[in-house]
């Protein structure tokens, strides 16, 4: 009896062999691209020596971290990363929601679709091309701002790529310019999904458009807003490397306001060859990032189980 069920079980498992074969290429890739680097995080606790190889270098405990957190850089890059991403989350959502509401108001469907197409355009080009567009605006001797806009306002030209104080504004504008049109799609879809009866009833009661937006539209899309905010907070330790590296053109004069964890790690590894320091910063980012994802997901679960990632 037992041998029969055993044989049946084996036969039924054999049925799944083709499915397991299908899994192999993808799982192999995740093993190489995702899981090996995860174990590789241990190099933050090692003194990397390429002759001894990645796995056999000597353990040095927390030395790399001591060096990292003794520098003023550690505080600066953490502050910049958190502040930029915080501003990006708040303004990004506000602008995207506002655009979605306005797009939804427009009766002329052709016009509304045309606006939408145009607003998505910046999302499609690489950050390298964005840095060219920004250069056309900001170049010291030939830029549109210094040669056309500022003279018209009677202001002296500004050496943009040497003045850190302007960059929080520039990077925020570039971020919104590139992403707002795209992220408004989510909200537009949510708004379109609202039952028109709510608005009919509000109109009968004599509610103004403004009132309808405040009392119906915004409350109805609040779950989406909350969810995206929490997801954003979960990723607040990671920044858009291209935006902070390419758009300021890796200009050293701007590091005080443009250096974030990702750019710090990159420069440490690729330009300074300081593997210890940059792997410590990378470990710090991965770990805090992981904790933040877990915490924000826990909060989402509390609010609405449906929207939680896990």
């Amino acid at each position: 009896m037992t041998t029969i069920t055993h044989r049946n079980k084996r036969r039924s498992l054999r049925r799944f062999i083709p499915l397991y074969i299908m899994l192999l290429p993808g799982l192999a890739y995740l093993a190489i691209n995702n899981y090996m680097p995860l174990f590789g995080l241990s190099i933050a606790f090692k003194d990397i020596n390429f002759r001894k190889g990645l796995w056999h270098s000597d353990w040095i405990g927390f030395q790399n971290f001591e060096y990292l957190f003794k520098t003023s850089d550690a505080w600066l890059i953490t502050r910049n990363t958190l502040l930029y991403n915080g501003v990006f989350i708040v303004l990004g959502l506000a602008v995207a929601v506002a655009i979605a509401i306005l797009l939804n108001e427009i009766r002329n469907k052709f016009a509304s679709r045309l606006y939408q197409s145009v607003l998505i355009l910046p999302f499609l080009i690489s950050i390298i091309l964005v840095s060219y567009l920004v250069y056309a605006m900001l170049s010291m001797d030939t830029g549109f701002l210094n040669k056309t806009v500022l003279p018209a306002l009677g202001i002296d030209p500004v050496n943009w790529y040497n003045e850190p104080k302007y960059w929080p504004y520039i990077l925020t504008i570039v971020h919104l310019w590139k992403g707002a049109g795209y992220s408004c799609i989510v909200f537009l879809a949510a708004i379109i999904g609202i039952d028109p009866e709510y608005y009919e009833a509000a109109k009968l009661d004599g509610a103004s458009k403004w009132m309808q937006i405040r009392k119906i539209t915004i409350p109805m899309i609040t779950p989406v807003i909350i969810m995206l905010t929490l997801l954003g907070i979960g990723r607040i330790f990671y920044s858009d490397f291209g935006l902070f590296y390419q758009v300021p053109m890796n200009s050293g004069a701007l590091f005080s306001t443009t250096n974030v964890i990702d750019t710090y790690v990159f420069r440490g590894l690729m330009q300074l060859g300081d593997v210890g320091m940059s792997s410590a910063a990378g470990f710090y980012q991965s770990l805090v990032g992981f904790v933040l994802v877990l915490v924000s997901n826990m909060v989402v679960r509390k609010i609405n189980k449906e929207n939680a990632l896990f």
Partner: protein
Amino acid sequence: MDKENRIWQWTSHIIMIALSAACILPFILLFMASITDESAIVTHGYTLFPTAFSFEAYEYLWNQSSQIFHAYGITILVTVIGTTASLIMTSLLAYPLSRKDLPGGQTIAFIVFFTLLFNGGLVPTYLIYTQVFHLKNTLFALLIPWLLMNGFNVLLMRTFFKTTIPVAVLESAAIDGAGEFKTYFRIILPLSMPILATVGMFQALGYWNDWNNGLVFVTDPDLFSLQNVLNRIMSDIQFLTSNSRMGTTQALAQLPSETFRMAIAVIGVIPILLVYPFFQKYFVKGMTIGAVKG
């Protein structure tokens, strides 16, 4: 239409027109700058209404074009191979995971999902690809690291398979004696065109626009993709001339540097503008397609 409605229509249109202009004008500035006479740029800067026109930058670009064409070739090759491989691997992983009867399916799905939560970041990834797999300065470096497949797309596809392909269809295929691979090719793939198009388009855009892998793993100019060439020219305007067949000094003397920068960026933007109208609806769809669950 009553007065309040009309005011809303007008304000909405005015704001949207202003925002659209803000999105478009930088591109127009780029184009106008590229066809401005170099000396006009020195006095007036980049403007929307140049005082003197010249196609010098494009002529110069044409003379230096072999490297640009080569970079285009690399970009197209990487985009085509990468997107195809990515779609095959993603769907092959997603299909078994969409099957409720697969023993161990939950565990494997978690292994995929976990990659979305925790990652090693740049340094270990770089060291593993260069020290263990020796990908530096190979075409694989542009194809494999980070871009080839991601857990998010796998779970997206799994959800699509689960929700749109009826179990009855799979069961009847099994009864008819179709093997799993046959089911995958003959039933799953043809029924999943919407999700394949969406994921494929995001993958293609990712490969086309990628400059990061080239920056991190490639120092050999022969392997530079279009984005890498653009990236190099931004910091080193003489990049093309230093690899030129023409004598370097002669090539440098003719270089209309300010317009040239803009012309090469125009060359980089054009392909995206050309294909965009055909793919637009997938972008909108891709953003609103079903939720991902672990």
